[in-house]
């Protein structure tokens, strides 16, 4: 038995007849930040979606803490302590910031007001805009709302799909800072990132994927310094 | 019931079945092959019937004119009536299609309901058009001189069956042509078809218009069979819903399915008329038409839940992608 928080073993998955992931194995330790990098079409987002039950694997197993969560659907997974932030369409545009966060707490049986306060402390900019419609916010602010929403449930593991996508460079830095802050509260993060360099810098470990398989694995710093990884996957990226 | 009675019953069954088969074939072009959601069949049905009536009857004169008003009365032969019915029905389809086909499919549906309702209201209230609620009577029948009156229906049946075969053949040819392949590609995956450079709107409009022309033909054949038409013959239940059930039961996307479904559902319809008239006590007998509609509605839901592809199923696609 492993002590890993999330344990993905020999998973294959895809869309209908199109197989994207081939025999992928990886894991996340408690409290870690793990980043998935690789070229487009490598299957990184597909892996996140498979873990979160948006896709059902055709082979392999996924364990979370001590539970087999293979193919488990999102409403159950959020109760297990996993939250997911999609890359696009990740807020409710016609709801206010506060209502978006409240939706994140939908499955909580207790009062969520304390947690709401904690989230506003983590994202002070959102406190100011709590009554604004989420659709009217800037890209960076929406990303904060999306992450805040996912954190309302006090997850043990947070899945992030390209959190910095489409953001201005200053916002990218801010988002990545927030990710470190979130991690400091004890939440493990598994994220897909195109800004490979910056992401690896703050990650404990990383996986390099290509063509639906894991090619490299290692400490974040080591992957950054690795020549081959740099040549193949980090060249030209910030 | 004696043999000749039974025979004439079967003949009228077959005539109506054939007429409905034509409607089902028209709907198949629109829905079965192109995915257009037309729930205003009653409108095209009515327009076809009335156009043919107005073209083939003379303007009322003398004493007659005090009872009957109509817009035109060309007193032309039967074939002109059929042709006119198809043309006017096609024009109606253009009117409905142009604003709606670029938009969501349910907008077309609502628009077709609207046009059918509007047509019914206009024909019912504008006496100068086609005699309002009393409708037009004494519609001529072609080739009456060829047979004795008691055998005329056999002749009409032959006419209807020829029409069914002709429409069937025309659609079959059309659907296997490059034009037809585009229609089916549109139904399968509209975005892919558009990305292949096809003018999706134009194709949809053509399918809508063609289907409507076929329905107009059906309407005209109906009018000359029953010889008297009025607006309440073209209700949504009788003229739109029944055709949908026929196509869904037989198999949408399948011409043979359309024909089979039409005869089958019409058989159930008239057969149950027979049963209810004979069996039910007076109170229920007056409710019989509604019982039959309930039955037909339940059949539709059963098909959708249990066998959505219908009895014969959809034809295997001629080709999935465009060349």
């Amino acid at each position, binding site marked *: 038995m492993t002590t890993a928080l999330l344990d993905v073993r020999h998973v294959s998955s895809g869309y209908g007849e199109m197989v994207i992931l081939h025999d992928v194995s990886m894991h996340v330790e408690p409290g870690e930040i793990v980043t998935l990098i690789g070229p487009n079409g490598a299957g990184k987002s597909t892996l996140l979606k498979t873990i979160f039950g948006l896709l059902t694997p055709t082979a392999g197993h996924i364990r979370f803490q001590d539970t087999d969560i293979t193919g488990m659907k999102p409403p159950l997974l959020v109760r297990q302590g996993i939250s997911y932030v999609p890359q696009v369409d990740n807020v409710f545009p016609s*709801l206010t910031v506060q209502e978006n966060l409240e939706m994140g707490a939908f499955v909580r049986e207790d009062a969520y007001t304390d947690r709401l306060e904690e989230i506003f402390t983590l994202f002070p900019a959102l406190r100011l805009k709590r009554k604004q419609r989420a659709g009217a916010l800037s890209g960076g602010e929406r990303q904060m709302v999306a992450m805040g929403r996912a954190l309302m449930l006090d997850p043990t593991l947070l899945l992030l799909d390209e959190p910095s996508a489409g953001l201005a460079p200053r916002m990218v830095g801010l988002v990545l800072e927030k990710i470190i802050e979130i991690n400091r509260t004890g939440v493990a993060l598994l994220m897909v990132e195109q800004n490979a360099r910056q992401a690896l810098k703050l990650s404990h470990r990383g996986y390099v994927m290509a063509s639906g398989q894991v090619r490299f694995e290692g400490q974040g710093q080591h992957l950054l310094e690795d020549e081959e990884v740099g040549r193949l996957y980090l060249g030209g990226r910030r | 019931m004696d043999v000749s009675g039974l025979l004439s019953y079967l003949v009228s069954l077959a005539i109506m079945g054939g007429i409905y088969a034509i409607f089902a074939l028209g709907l198949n072009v629109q829905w079965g092959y192109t995915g257009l959601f037309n729930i205003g069949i009653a409108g095209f049905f009515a327009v076809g019937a009335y156009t043919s009536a107005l073209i083939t009857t003379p303007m009322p004169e003398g004493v007659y004119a005090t009872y009957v008003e109509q817009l035109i009365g060309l007193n032309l032969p039967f074939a002109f009536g059929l042709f006119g019915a198809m043309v006017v029905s096609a024009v109606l389809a253009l009117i409905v299609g142009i604003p709606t086909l670029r938009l969501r499919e349910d907008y077309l549906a609502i628009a077709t309901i609207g046009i059918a309702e509007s047509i019914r209201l206009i024909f019912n209230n504008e006496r100068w058009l086609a005699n309002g609620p009393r409708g037009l009577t004494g519609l001529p029948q072609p080739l009456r001189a060829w047979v004795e009156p008691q055998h005329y229906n056999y002749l009409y049946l032959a006419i209807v069956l020829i029409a069914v075969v002709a429409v069937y053949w025309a659609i079959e040819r059309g659907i296997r042509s490059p034009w037809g392949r585009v229609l089916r590609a549109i139904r399968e995956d509209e975005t892919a078809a558009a990305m292949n450079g096809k003018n999706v709107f134009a194709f949809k409009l053509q399918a809508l218009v063609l289907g409507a022309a076929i329905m107009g033909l059906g309407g005209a054949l109906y009018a000359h069979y029953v010889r008297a038409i009025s607006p309440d013959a073209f209700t949504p239940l009788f003229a739109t819903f029944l055709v949908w059930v026929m196509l869904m039961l037989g198999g949408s996307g399948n011409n043979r399915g359309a024909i089979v479904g039409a005869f089958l559902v019409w058989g159930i319809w008239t057969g149950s008329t027979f049963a209810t008239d004979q069996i039910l006590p007076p109170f229920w007998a007056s409710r019989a038409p509604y019982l039959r509609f309930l039955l037909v509605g339940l059949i539709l839901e059963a098909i959708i839940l249990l066998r959505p592809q219908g009895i014969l199923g959809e034809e295997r696609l001629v080709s999935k992608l465009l060349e």
Partner: protein
Amino acid sequence: MTELLVYGIVLGSIIALGAIGLTLLYGILRFAHFAHGDLMTFGAYVVLFLHSELLPWLGIPELRLGALSFGGRMLGALVISMAVTAGLALLIDRLLYEPLRTRKSSPVILAIASLGMAFILRSLIYIVWGPQFLFYTQELRPAWELPLEVRLRPDQLFILVLALVLVALLYLFLQHTTLGKAMRATADNPQLAWVCGIDTRRVTAWTWVLGAALAAAAGVLYGIDAQLRPDMGWSFLLPLFAAVILGGIGSPVGALVGGIILGVVQQVSTAFLLPTYKPAVAFVVLIILLLVRPHGLFGRTT
């Protein structure tokens, strides 16, 4: 003309009640519910049964309410009818639409199924009550004479007030309850709602309950104002859809505004056209709308 305007608003509030339910179903369930008009009819006839048969049979007397043509018993019947219609809608959803959704049937198949349901409901009403016009009461209540030559029946004022009350209650529900917010969230982004763990079954059920209850109320109010006939709901279908599209699909506020506008336009049209043409007027409004601004007043340009 003012009188037409006033009555148009009354009619419009009835249309709005139906349109709001329809737009909720459109926005949250992505479903063109062609049986919505017939739910209105169903609700109206249930009240007829309760008010004219069951409740008197149970010995419950009518409680007169001032100048209105009906009383407390009628209101009780209305509430019961809203609940019964909601229950019916839930049953239909469980038996018919849910299996289709699970099977990932296309929206058009769902729409066809709802069309079938419309005809089934209408046939049932024809079977039980027959095709003739029916009325809740044979009493005639005199109209009030208001300034500007407007004559308003007390019943009509009641309709307006009740409609507004129901709309206000719905608004409070959608804005201030968790479930209401979950419904708005699902309308915005069903996938994300699922990802958050929002219970889509509960959201679906409540959407039907609210939509059907409002439809029943609309049907009853129309019955109070005019008459009951089995195809009354079907003739409302065009104004309902026109109001929804005018207001922007998925927007309850839009449906309210759209409903009132449609009511007024339809009523004003009777100055030039026969009243039976009202559905056709709604149709013309719809076509103009589709040509000019298909996403409506408050809709999103997706």
